[in-house]
């Protein structure tokens, strides 16, 4: 049987939806763990977060995982679109009077809508931070009284910046000391600071918080649903899977949402 024939089956689509969904749940945990460093204020937080970001964006293993994540988001979203369209068609004529609230949860009935909101958010979020960090040659560089920093976290006294092959490098005494350390911490703080970003800071804080609400609803159903899709349904474990799912859907988005709220409120 050809590959497309495997994917044409409804159950094969369920497996793929569940596997990509659970992978994205793991991604969320990793992403959150790193971002929580933004709660550390001042220079200490700046150094910690920027070194972490530098590691994440230069380590080949991490970069591979990052690209796999983007591809799997696309697979998950495209498959979701195919399923939503097929499922609408499967109904045919709509009911004149229907009470879906009587037999299914709100979160389970809104997977497509919350997912769409998530997709929009993911694109906006990548444009906000990932794209400039990777493709903007003039991205701000970490500096202190001791001068500009190179990617290895070392400050170079009396240094200056110069573009080499589209990447910013630190030069001290006319010598290239290596790639410059990008100041993602400050860029993120400024993004959510009304002093630096005006009303956009508030708009973005609201957008980020609403998007995390979408994550909460998507995972309130999605987390445990994925186990069912993978054929894991057993009296002994259903309780713990459901509970873990609800806690996951509560804690992860709340922690994520707390970051822009904190950055906004501490900088008003």
């Amino acid at each position, binding site marked *: 049987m050809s590959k497309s024939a495997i994917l044409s*089956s409804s159950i094969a*689509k369920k497996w793929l939806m569940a596997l990509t969904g659970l992978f994205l749940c793991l991604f969320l945990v990793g992403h959150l763990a790193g971002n929580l460093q933004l709660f550390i204020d001042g220079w200490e937080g700046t150094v910690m977060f920027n070194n972490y970001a530098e590691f994440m964006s230069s380590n080949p293993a991490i970069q591979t995982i990052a690209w796999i994540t983007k591809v799997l988001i696309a697979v998950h979203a495209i498959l979701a679109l195919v399923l939503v369209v097929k499922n609408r068609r*499967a109904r045919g004529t709509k009911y004149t009077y229907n009470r879906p609230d009587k037999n299914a949860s709100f979160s389970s009935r809104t997977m497509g809508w919350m997912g769409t909101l998530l997709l929009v958010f993911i694109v906006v979020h990548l444009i906000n931070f990932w794209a400039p960090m990777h493709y903007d040659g003039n991205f701000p560089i970490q500096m202190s009284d001791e001068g500009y920093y190179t990617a290895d976290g070392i400050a170079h006294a009396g240094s200056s910046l110069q573009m080499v092959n589209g990447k910013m490098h630190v030069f001290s005494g006319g010598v290239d000391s290596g790639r410059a350390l990008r100041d993602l911490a400050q860029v993120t703080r400024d993004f959510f600071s009304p002093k630096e970003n005006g009303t956009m800071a508030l708009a973005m804080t609201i957008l980020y918080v609403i998007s995390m609400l979408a994550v909460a609803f998507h995972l309130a159903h999605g987390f445990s649903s994925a186990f*069912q899709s993978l054929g894991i*349904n057993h009296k002994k474990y259903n309780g713990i899977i459901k509970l873990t799912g609800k806690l996951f859907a509560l804690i992860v988005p709340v922690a994520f949402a707390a970051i822009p709220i904190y950055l906004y409120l501490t900088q008003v």
Partner: protein
Amino acid sequence: MSNQAGMNLTLKVWRQKDGNSKGKIETYKLADISEHMSFLEMLDVLNEQLISEGKEPVAFDHDCREGICGSCSMHINGEPHGPDRGVTTCQLHMRKFKDGDTIYVEPFRAKAFPVIKDLVVDRSAFDRIIQAGGFVSVNTSGNSQDANAIPIPKAEADKAFDAATCIGCGACVASCKNASAMLFVSAKVSQFALLPQGQVEGKERVLNMVQQMDDEGFGNCTNTGACEVECPKGISLENIARMNREFLKAKIHKE
């Protein structure tokens, strides 16, 4: 007999001449309906009233009127088989409604269940899925075997029996926002997959039944669980998980 007056009801019933015509909701008033009537008896009263007015009676499917044939398919006030749990329409009693209520009655909606007339839909897609499941090999070798010759753990036998109680009513499809038939198909897969006798043709069975289910145009399960809530026989979502496992096992072995 109590001498209390019965209920006055407003019925909003889907009327459709045949599969090719456009249907619409018609409104009917019914007076003095006893709370002891079943929903189908109430419809019988409506039809007598319509006939006496020289109008076409409402066509609806029914047979056993005791909850075992699964033919009395209708969507009542937004739910298949109405607001009660664990019952078919023929077992739904009018005491579940109040005087003055408006009740919507529509056919089960699914592309794979085309309307034949009024509330009657064609559920032969289910028959074709069952057919796709094929046969079960039984060695008769001239004599009939003792029914208990193969030991089966009690728990497994019970689960197989629970799955086998599915009456093919289609409420799972009607309630599912995706019009998915997975609860029905998984019950039919499970009743054999759980028993040793079902193993011989097991892999073919699940692959063929799922293929037929997809070909009939049913939707994809998203685990909302509406089917389990509305199923008159309490068929569990566990069966869908089992079908998903059986399907993967069969795919891996077959290719």
